[in-house]
């Protein structure tokens, strides 16, 4: 694991934000390199091999974040890129994503949200086993028959609940945030004012976890959810 640590490049001119991101990523076990200007960022991004690039959209030095992504893609590099930007309009988001970025996060953001997205991106770019069955502890989801069982019990799910569970299981032991769920399971990007996602999760939890000694869906307060057999110190505190 240590030899194979994730190499991450952070291009961000604002020192405090840069430190915040780098510190968090290092705590999560990544090798982090930081730089602060557009030209430096471009040199680093194109000159070395990275597993992930996090960049600010507006950078000093005449080269902005979008043109770095542009150059990178023009060179045929498919390195996952997350843009963090204070430009939060949907317009800015769409141009960022169309410009070749893999994800777009608006400032200010919670580090947990960034980390969850980083991890989801890394998993997506990693060559995964193309299995026909997902398994978390004694919970099984058969992708071909769409049959879900926990232990001996067959669990009947609504189509949306099925997709929600599938997404959670594919991201086993990873944090997924509400926005990530809304984007991936419902395919919408907006900020619902009420806890629609929480209610959906608690429905799912009622079907998956109720009457079983081990909880599989954990609520992380203020962050999102995590699926896994491991105990979570925050389970039960949240809205579930």
């Amino acid at each position, binding site marked *: 694991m240590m030899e194979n640590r994730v190499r991450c490049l952070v291009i961000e001119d604002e020192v405090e934000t840069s430190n915040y991101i780098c510190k968090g990523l290092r705590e999560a076990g990544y090798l982090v390199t930081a730089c602060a200007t557009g030209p430096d960022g471009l040199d680093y991004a194109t000159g070395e091999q990275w597993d992930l690039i996090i960049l600010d959209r507006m950078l000093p030095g005449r080269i902005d974040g979008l043109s770095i992504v542009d150059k990178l893609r023009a060179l045929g590099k498919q390195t996952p890129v997350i843009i963090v930007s204070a430009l*939060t*309009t*949907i*317009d800015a988001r*769409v141009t960022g994503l169309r410009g070749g970025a893999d994800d777009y996060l*608006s400032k*200010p953001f*919670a580090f947990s949200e960034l980390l969850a997205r980083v991890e989801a991106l890394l998993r997506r770019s990693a060559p995964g086993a193309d299995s026909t069955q997902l398994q978390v502890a004694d919970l099984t989801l058969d992708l071909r028959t769409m049959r879900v069982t926990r232990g001996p019990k067959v669990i009947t799910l609504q189509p*949306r609940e099925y997709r929600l569970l599938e997404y959670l299981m594919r991201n086993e032991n990873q944090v997924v945030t509400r926005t990530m769920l809304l984007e991936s399971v*419902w395919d*919408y*990007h*907006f*900020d*619902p*004012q*009420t*806890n*629609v996602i929480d*209610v*959906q999760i608690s*429905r799912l939890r009622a079907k998956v976890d109720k009457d079983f000694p081990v909880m599989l869906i954990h609520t992380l*307060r*203020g962050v999102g959810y995590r699926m896994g057999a491991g105990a979570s110190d925050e389970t039960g505190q949240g809205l579930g």
Partner: protein
Amino acid sequence: MADSSTLSARFPVKRPFGPLGRASIAAKLALGYGLLGTFSIVAVSAVFYTGTIGVLDDNLDGKIVMQSDRLIEHARFPGHGALVEEVRRQLADGVDSDREIFQLITGNGVPAAGNLDAVPAGAQPAPPPRAMMVTTVVKRDGHERPARLYLRPMADGGLLIVGRDLSEQHAVREVIWRALLAGAGVSLLLTVGGALLFRRGIEGRLGEIRRTAAQIEAGNLSHRIPVSGGDEFALLNRDINRMLDRIELLMEGIRHVSNAIAHDLRTPLSRIRGRLDDALRHEMTVPRLSGAAHDAIDDIDDLIRLFERLLQIAEAESGMRARLFERLDLGRVVADIGEMYEAIAEDGGIALTVDAPASLYVDGDRNLLASAVASLLDNAIKYAGPGAAIRVRAGLHHGQASIAIHDNGPGIPEAERDKVTQRFYRLDKSRHLPGNGLGLSIVSATATSHGGSLTLEDGAPGLVARILLPLASG
């Protein structure tokens, strides 16, 4: 209201154009038309003059030469007897004889026959070498008179003068000149007078606009330009008034927003501050501090959300997103959001029915429209309360795509319906219910940016919130 003396000092509306002519369009127009009028009068006069007097002059010369030719025939016989006889006959025939001039002068300078008192200036001291036409003054019947004369030297050194007295013609010419001058004077006066009237009219109309502009600049936004008639100025004034209506509305909105921000942002900020302060002042245990930090982050997240919503409204209202629009199935979006809210409605004891057939195509932004529908559903669930029934319907409504959310809750009093779409306006005056009073303004701004509208209707009972959008063309 600013006091009116400083107002008129800054905006001297009484004499809006300063000294006559200085940069005033009206004065320039008046001057221009005056010059144009004068020029046309001169042109008309010139044509008229050459057409009358000029023609008379030409005919006159022709006649004189013809008469002279006829007379000279008689000079073929030796001596002047026949010619003298003919001149006398012509003078006595009574045809035009008061205008005709004949004079025969012999080779030695003695007048032989004719009606001139003296030899005219052109024929003295010797006759001209060849025939020529002159205009000169002759003496006749004891009076000096203008005349047109044809002087024709004869072979024996004599001179035959045939001509016309021009006194009458001169009198006619003078009459025509006078008439032309009088006409020109009168029309010039009329042009200048008309131009001045026109200038005064324009100044009056512009004065109204300027006075209104001055009032507006002084802060009296409700002032409007009086609109009368249906001319270009009335149209312009109507347009300006409409623009002012819009500006006043926006200004009111900004004022309202500032007040609301003062309230809605100060409250959470002071709460955050209080909590952190409290955590620091008392026993600083780790759980206590981390609890305070968590709460502060939650509150700050709420604030960020508030800002994002404000930005979202600004973005929608700036109307610059149309290029990102795509063709989408509104029925599908409504069905998705309806499904998303089914669980939460059920938990709240609310019967939610969604009727959203597919293939209702509009051009728009999928996420914004989804957010709008979610917002309306949020409101319906929040205000209708437990036990209520909510019906969501997507379909056609008078040729437009419509999303109607009908609840049987308390509804919104008619007088309040217009206000609830304003930013930060809340029916719940005590602000107990969660929310920030931005939901409906965002929905409204979203609908407007899609070329549609948000209407709130009486649901009898309850409320019908309806988003109308233009159908995708083609």
